[in-house]
């Protein structure tokens, strides 16, 4: 048991380091927009550089522009890349979920058309699954596609998607729609790729309670798509979506807010109730210990996952517990910090608040993190069902025609 690379990994890491030293950016791209619009040119340039050297999609086969590498190669590159001031990466969803779906289900010409520009960062993709009435229940899709009456075989899409990350700067998307409401919900769905600049596609940012707007609503009004844009068979959309979703929950990262060490630092510098430092308060010390143990537990769980990858094994179920712990910790730690600051904890102005308001940000962002990519409740269900093998919830919607299903509106 050690934390060392295997000789092969060490060699790969050395090669990556050399390449990064020669090619990675040395200064962070300027930009103040939290949604990353103004750092886009820098993101695009870095993606193109990586693509040219085969580092953009390390695990993809070489014929698609990848490197044919292993997941551990990908992890090693990520670790080394993180030492440089790289720009934001708006390609994750596209390259992690959308384009692989296209590569799996589209014809050769379409794959040829899209793979290169996507890898090189010339085109951005988004994933259009969630709907206002759907939430975790992707198969409840109401956005409709009907065949055009003109006999062209084209489809006309109408409806609304929501929580679409990056839709505001995406060129293409993959969208799941209902093509047959007369069969049970999972059976009447079909997947298409669409041009986000096509007439009838309208993107509206969602204003979050925390102030930002990284997500969007996307409205479709008589959007016409060719039948050739279909991914998989008519009515096979649910199966296609499972391919896409397989990677989603891995893609939603853990909390990145202030952690135990920031709390410890703030406690050291905050007066406690008895005049001494708040860090002397054993109630806060016990919480610190608990948060440290959770954070270390998650870190070492990642190490176990990496070890499995390094040994060429499939990671065990332990990788599913990250967000369920970190999102709740972010909320509780942030709240404990503001309560430690007493009345002053209310102040969110970054020029006045401790750590530029990091704890206040945690309090305001954590509710979103507890929901995005699966609520606490959905994640517990996933652990119970997929990891522990317990039965699924009783389904009342399996055998009912979609149009006959109760839906509340």
């Amino acid at each position, binding site marked *: 048991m050690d934390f060392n690379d295997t000789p092969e990994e060490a060699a790969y890491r050395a090669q990556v380091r050399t390449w990064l030293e020669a090619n990675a950016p040395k200064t962070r791209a300027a930009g103040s927009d939290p949604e990353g619009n103004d750092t886009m040119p820098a993101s695009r340039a870095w993606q193109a550089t990586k693509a040219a050297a085969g580092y953009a999609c390390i695990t993809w086969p070489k014929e698609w522009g990848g490197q044919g590498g292993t997941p551990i190669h990908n992890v090693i590159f990520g670790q080394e890349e993180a030492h440089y001031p790289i720009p934001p990466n708006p390609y994750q969803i596209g390259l992690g979920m959308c384009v692989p779906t296209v590569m799996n289900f589209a014809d050769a010409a379409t794959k040829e058309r899209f793979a290169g520009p996507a890898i090189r960062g010339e085109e951005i993709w988004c994933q259009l699954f*969630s709907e*206002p*009435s*759907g*939430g*975790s*229940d992707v198969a*409840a899709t109401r956005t409709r596609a009907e065949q055009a009456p003109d006999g062209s075989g084209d489809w006309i899409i109408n409806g609304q998607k*929501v929580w679409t990350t990056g839709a505001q700067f995406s060129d293409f998307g993959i969208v799941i729609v209902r093509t047959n409401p007369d069969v049970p919900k999972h059976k009447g769905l079909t997947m298409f790729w669409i041009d986000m600049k096509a007439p009838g596609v309208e993107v509206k940012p*969602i*204003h*979050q*309670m*925390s*102030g930002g707007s990284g997500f969007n609503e996307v409205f479709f009004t008589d959007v016409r798509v060719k039948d050739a844009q279909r991914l998989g068979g008519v009515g096979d959309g649910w199966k296609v979506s499972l391919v896409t979703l397989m990677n989603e929950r891995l893609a939603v990262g853990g909390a990145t807010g202030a952690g135990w060490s920031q709390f410890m630092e703030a406690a050291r*510098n*905050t*007066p*406690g*109730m*008895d*005049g001494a430092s708040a860090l002397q308060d054993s*109630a806060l010390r016990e919480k610190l210990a608990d948060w440290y143990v959770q954070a270390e537990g998650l870190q070492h769980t990642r190490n176990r996952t990496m070890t499995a990858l390094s040994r060429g094994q499939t990671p065990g179920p332990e990788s599913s517990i990250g967000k369920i712990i970190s999102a709740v910790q972010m*909320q509780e730690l942030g*709240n404990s910090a*503001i*309560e*430690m*600051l*007493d*009345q*002053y*904890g*209310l*102040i*969110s*102005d970054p020029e*006045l608040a*401790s750590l530029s308001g990091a704890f*206040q940000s945690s*309090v*305001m962002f954590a*509710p*979103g993190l*507890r*929901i*995005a990519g699966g*609520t*606490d*409740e959905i994640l*517990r*269900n996933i652990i119970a069902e997929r990891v522990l093998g317990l039965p699924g*919830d009783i*389904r*009342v*919607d399996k055998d009912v025609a979609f149009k006959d*299903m*109760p*839906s*509340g509106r």
Partner: protein
Amino acid sequence: MNFDFSDDQKFLKGEARKFLEANCPTAAARAVLEDDAQGYDAKLWKAVAAQGWLGAAIPEEHGGLGLGHLELCVIAEELGRAVAPIPFASTVYMLAEAVMLAGTEAQKAELLPGIAAGDIIGCLATSEGPGVTTASNLQATVTDGKLTGVKIPVTDGAIAHVGLVLARENGKPGLFLVDLTDASVTRDTLKTLDPTRDAARLTFANTPVRRLGEAGEGVALVEQVLDRAAILLSFEQCGGADRCLEFAKDYAMERYAFGRVIASYQAIKHKLADMYVKNELARSNAYYGAWALNTNAPEMPIAASAARIAASEAFWYASKENIQTHGGIGFTWEMDCHLFYRRSRQLSLVAGAPRVWKERLVSHLERRNAA
């Protein structure tokens, strides 16, 4: 056993709810939230004054209605339910209570009628920075009747007319009445987690002050005021927490997932049951606080601590799990969930954090059990 509000008090509560439903929809809080220039809803403030609520517990001789504190409790609960964007707590629970507790007849005559009429907004200025401001680290100083120092944050500090300021005089903490409209006072509005309520940094430079209560007794007086405020605030918190439960329940009964309302899933059912349990424990503790406040019982510090701890916990849980129950939509600006979440943080911190009250509670229990 008569441990509940009277029919008259319940009638007043019903009337208050109707009034606030008409005059203080959540759009009122949202308007203050979205407009940096607006520290409170001045129109609502005047309307509330016209209802007589500001003077509910102020004697008739000083322009109030001369009702008891139980009437103030039911009004507080409705204000909390409505996330009312007005300086009610600062003015009524803090300034008016302090003046009634420790003011001279002249001070009462001068201030109480203005408070009751809605002409005087008050605020309590104790905090001077991160952490708990205590007698030992207090910096603001009064010399020859002039105050110098900085108070941050002061809830309603930018909109108040009269401040209650804790400051050192001859080395000992005293509580002082300060005219905040004096030119020597600098007021900087602060960004906080709950912009539906005003907050400011107040800088005093030789500002004239008058002492409230005995010299050197400022900390004890602040504690008395905070006990009273904590009980009344606990009713605001109960009101907010109950409304969060209602919101969560209504949404869960309407929202479908996998072909059935999410209220039919045990994860949601048990979450709402937990909310209910916390809310009821908070309410029962608040009622005991109301009894102690109304009878000026010696148990008040213990009752106030328990009420504040239970109500802070209930509102925090209800406001955050209400968002969680709503899912993604609950995290949007347009939904009202965050108004209650923000207010729950404001109410938990404005009169001192729950952990401070837990320490205070156990200290009092130690003394009581030793006695």
